[in-house]
């Protein structure tokens, strides 16, 4: 079956043909970009939202500047889809390499498929020690508005640990970046994985994140959307081994007429795994924040404990928060729950602070920062904490 493609879809279709990705092209020809009829894009109809898709980006050189400068970090850059290794050699226990083409075994989702077909080079980070050094990967988009595709595959070996920070920092052009990250946690491995989008407000940012969590592993994942006119992160996590735990957190700071969407799908496939999902959004002006979360507990995945929470805060009347927290449960001996709240700042709290002499704007900012504390508090690295909390502070001051 084929559908009528619009001009943006034609560009993507042609790019797939040019990349010789025949089967994905065929598939794309029959479905096109996802619409709201596709449940996981219910509030982010990409066929409507994505316009002015450019041609595939051409090679550019790095400016050599990084978005964050964290003490004791190892920095890498992907510029217009090409991996650039600058400066020092990697710390001990880390192997950096690249491979041709996109990610291995991409998710079936069409955006993930497009990414894998169109990515020219994938960055591999293999960690086999308990790493003190933070690994930072910056995505940069240079030159005129274009279509960017890139991929990062991270492997944390058994009993190893690392903190990885991915920063998306688009230029002021109307780029569309379709990124993918895969993080595999070996047995008893530990990782903190932070993804921050601080792209300029013209950029469109799509990211697919895939986690494979093995026995006894421990993951802390944090997504921050503070840029882009359209930002959508879809996260797929699989618990493949017992006694593993993961905390998934996210923050959407959305203003103007921006559209921010975090959609996560956590699958507890084996017994005795636990997870928390803690997401917050703060919206103002005509902005839209979307959170869709799904916890799947497979048959036999007994003793799963999963708790999902989304809290939305609306700072102005035209903003919107749209939430769909799902539970899909096939095992009986589990504790699963979700909660969702949304509303304005509490007037009583505001009055209390003001009655002690604090001005309204400052009182509001204090309350918003208090609302966000749960997101930042688990970050133990002070530099990183300051940078991330600083993003929220700057956003509040704008």
């Amino acid at each position, binding site marked *: 079956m084929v559908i009528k493609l619009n001009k943006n879809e034609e560009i993507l279709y042609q790019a797939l043909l040019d990349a010789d990705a025949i089967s994905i092209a065929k598939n794309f020809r029959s479905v096109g970009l996802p619409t709201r009829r596709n449940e996981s894009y219910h509030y982010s109809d990409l066929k409507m939202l994505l316009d002015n898709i450019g041609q595939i980006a051409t090679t550019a050189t790095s400016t050599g500047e990084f978005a964050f400068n964290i003490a004791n970090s190892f920095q890498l850059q992907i510029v217009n889809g090409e991996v650039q290794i600058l400066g020092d050699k990697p710390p001990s226990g880390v192997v950096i390499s690249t491979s041709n083409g996109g990610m291995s075994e991409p998710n079936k989702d069409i955006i993930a498929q497009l990414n894998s077909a169109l990515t020219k080079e994938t960055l591999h980070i293999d960690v086999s020690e308990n790493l003190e050094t933070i690994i930072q990967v910056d995505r940069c988009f240079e030159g005129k508005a274009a279509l960017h595709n890139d991929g990062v595959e991270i492997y944390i070996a058994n009993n190893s640990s690392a903190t990885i920070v991915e920063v998306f920092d688009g230029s002021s052009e109307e780029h569309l970046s379709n990124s993918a990250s895969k993080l595999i946690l070996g047995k008893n491995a530990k990782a903190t994985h932070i993804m921050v989008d601080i792209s300029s407000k013209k950029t469109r940012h799509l990211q697919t994140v895939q986690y494979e969590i093995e026995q006894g592993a421990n993951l802390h994942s944090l997504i921050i959307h503070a840029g882009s006119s359209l930002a959508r992160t879809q996260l797929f996590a699989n618990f493949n081994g017992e006694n593993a735990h993961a905390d998934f957190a996210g923050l959407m700071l959305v203003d103007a007429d921006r559209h921010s969407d975090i959609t996560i799908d956590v699958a507890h496939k084996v017994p005795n795994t636990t997870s928390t999902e803690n997401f917050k959004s703060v919206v103002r002006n005509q902005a839209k924040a979307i959170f869709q979360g799904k916890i799947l507990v497979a048959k036999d995945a007994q003793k799963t404990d999963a708790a999902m929470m989304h809290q939305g805060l609306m700072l102005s009347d035209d903003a919107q928060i749209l939430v769909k927290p799902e539970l899909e449960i096939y095992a009986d001996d589990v504790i699963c729950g979700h909660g969702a709240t949304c509303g304005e700042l509490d007037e009583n709290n505001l*009055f*209390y602070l*003001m*009655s002690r*002499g604090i001005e309204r704007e400052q009182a509001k900012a*204090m*309350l918003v920062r*208090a609302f966000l504390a749960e997101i930042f508090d688990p970050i133990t690295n002070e530099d990183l904490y300051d940078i991330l909390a600083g993003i929220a502070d700057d956003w509040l001051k704008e």
Partner: protein
Amino acid sequence: MLEIRDLHVSVEDKEILKGVNLVIPKGEIHAIMGRNGSGKSTLSYVMAGKSGYEITKGEIILDGVNILDMEPNERASAGLFLAFQYPIEIPGVATMTFLKAAMNAQRKARGEEELSTPDFMREVKQAAKMLEIDNKMLKRALNVGFSGGEKKRAEILQMALLKPKMCVFDETDSGLDIDALRIVSQGVNALRDANRSMLVITHYQRLLNYIIPDVVHVFSNGKIVKSGDKSLALELEEKGYAQYDESAA
């Protein structure tokens, strides 16, 4: 000096305060006693500037300035302090951060310099000691997980740090056991000052054994119906509020 002139206040078209007149000279402590629902708490909220109350008539003048048009924070900077009956819990806001923000906001409004961190710490420690507040409590989020007594002590701590000219205590004795009542009262009495006025709003006479008022007012059906010296409180305790119901109606 505080002066309330013919204050009328409505909530959703229902008149709650029906012409309150009250003058509290510098250095004096006044008490307002009344039944639950007589409008006492409304008076304290209106003084502090809470939204949701419609002031249909009257003025509240603090040191010659009508404060009714001011934001709650401006009133605070002008020297008004309300000790809440139910201090609010705000998770995520550290108590120390809050105290510092409040002190500096008021200093800034008065054109004073910000406190240095060591000075701030010293002041907090001193005040905390007087109120038997330990450091652990100060490390928690604002009022979160505080017992009833701890919350009230934290209110007095804030008062001690902010050094207001006019203090309003809204049912400060509610939910306090005798020890907590003693500590809170000691704190209040320590802050008695020739330049500081206080208004103690209470349902029971008990608190007035600890904080001795200069003047006692009886509040009924939205206004003050009788004023007298501290013996009026004892008389009320004995005879009850019923005798004032008619005169107010």
